[in-house]
């Protein structure tokens, strides 16, 4: 730890601002991904039909959820990419050490999580407008969000993205520490998937999934996500404590 905390935070702030400028192109991919997702969303997410006297009914559900899922993946991959050499060494061209770099990266990922969350939710409205003008279904029924719900949606989506970022960052750090993790991580993950296929809903993966995705209480959800993400980030920073630059 540096002796002068003020200098330390001033540096982290500088590095954070630097990243906002230097990594600005990650938003280009975000935009393209969300627009692509909107195109994919023109297929119904689910469709239910049934018949009664005189009427055949079908209810097609549409949503811009793909945009949100794509943004999750974007968060994971972006966090992974910023641990790679090309991004990491930029910092050491200027002033940095591993901790200040880690702190600045976390601040940066926090920022892009919220930008990702806001745009992902707002892209649903863009989808709504495009849907209205391009689809000739007889009737469109929109579940409009209230402002409170909009707020919840943005917060929850941003936190999910942050969680993905924390996972991606840790994965990136591990792979940077040793190339072998580039093989181990996918193998473990696919192994868990296969185990999940065998044991169904009781597997670790399913439980983890439901732990976050079935939490209906917003406050507990926020706690779960922030605590998990903090732990993941903390682990990443401490793993990278002794990482050498420019090897």
């Amino acid at each position, binding site marked *: 730890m540096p002796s002068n905390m003020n200098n330390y935070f001033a540096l982290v702030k500088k590095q954070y601002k630097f990243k906002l400028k230097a990594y*600005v*192109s990650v*938003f*280009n991919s975000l*935009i*393209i*991904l969300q627009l692509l997702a909107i195109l994919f969303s023109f297929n*119904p*997410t*689910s*469709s*239910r039909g*049934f*018949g*009664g*006297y*005189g*009427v*055949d*009914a*079908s209810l097609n*559900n*549409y*949503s811009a*959820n793909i945009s*949100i899922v*794509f943004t999750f*993946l*974007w968060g994971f*991959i972006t966090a992974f*990419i910023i641990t790679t050499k090309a991004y990491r060494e930029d910092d050491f061209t200027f002033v940095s050490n591993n901790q200040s770099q880690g702190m600045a990266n976390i601040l940066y990922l926090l920022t892009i999580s919220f*930008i990702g969350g806001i*745009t992902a*939710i*707002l*892209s*649903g*409205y*863009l989808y709504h*407008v495009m849907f209205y003008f391009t689809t000739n*279904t007889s*009737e*469109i*029924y*929109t*579940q*409009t*969000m209230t402002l409170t*719900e909009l707020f*919840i*949606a943005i917060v*929850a*989506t941003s936190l999910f993205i942050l969680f993905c970022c924390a996972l991606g960052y840790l994965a990136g750090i591990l792979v940077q520490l040793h190339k072998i993790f580039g093989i181990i991580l996918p193998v473990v993950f696919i192994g868990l998937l*296969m185990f*999940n296929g065998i044991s169904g*809903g009781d597997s670790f*993966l399913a439980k983890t999934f439901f732990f976050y995705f*079935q939490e*209906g*209480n917003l406050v507990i959800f926020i706690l779960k996500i922030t605590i998990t993400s903090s732990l993941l980030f903390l682990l990443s920073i401490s793993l990278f404590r002794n990482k050498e630059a420019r090897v």
Partner: protein
Amino acid sequence: MISYIVMLILIMAGIIALFLIFFRYISSKIMPGARHRWLLIGYVTILLLAFGISYTIPGNEIDKNDRLKIVHDQDIPNLYAVPEFTGSIDIAQDYLTDEWTFDFDEETLHLEIFGEDMLNNIAIETTKEKQTIDVNLYVTPSILNNIDFTTGSLPKTDVTLHDNVLTVETPSRNHVEVSQLQKPFPVRQFTESNYLNVDIEPGFSVSEEVDDTSVDSPYIDMDGGRIFSTELLYLKVPANVKVTGTEDMNIFFID
């Protein structure tokens, strides 16, 4: 199920990763420097515009939509059971969709029903003194996720009387398709119970026809957010008239 989704996500992640790497490569060639920022600002502006416009799009308010008038907790009578259980049709009066009246002075009435749809739930009230036949058609709506698909979309049923033959021609079905734009799942997680099971399943669920008439209440049970339509042809005939039908008709007499 989850592994299927995760697998799908993995494949998508791979595609996106490739895409991102490619994009990073070309973007620095075509658009160097901080000008990238304007792309994000432009995009957010478009999103905010869309946000505003989406509120001006008609039909997105629940109250303005005819199909959505169904009150959540209103009980809908099961027309397959109502006359049998209550001996009258009174509780189903809201669902009277059409009525015909014919002068009639024969002694037997023969019922003939054909057409694309089945209509074999028939109740006959034989208490009439006047020499007319009243034909009433009751239909309860098909409801899915609180959306009423039937009201306003029910095609006309043809009923004619020639001599002593009452002919009912059921209409071909109207296809009603309703598109529902759902809220994003991160908000449904906190506002709906069990949102995962209902909607994460991809693809179609099989459409079902109503075939179950064994009920012990005159009201329909909600089944997975869906209420099946029931129909009833209710005849009021003079007491002296004998009614005949075909074998497949399910005729119930109310005396």
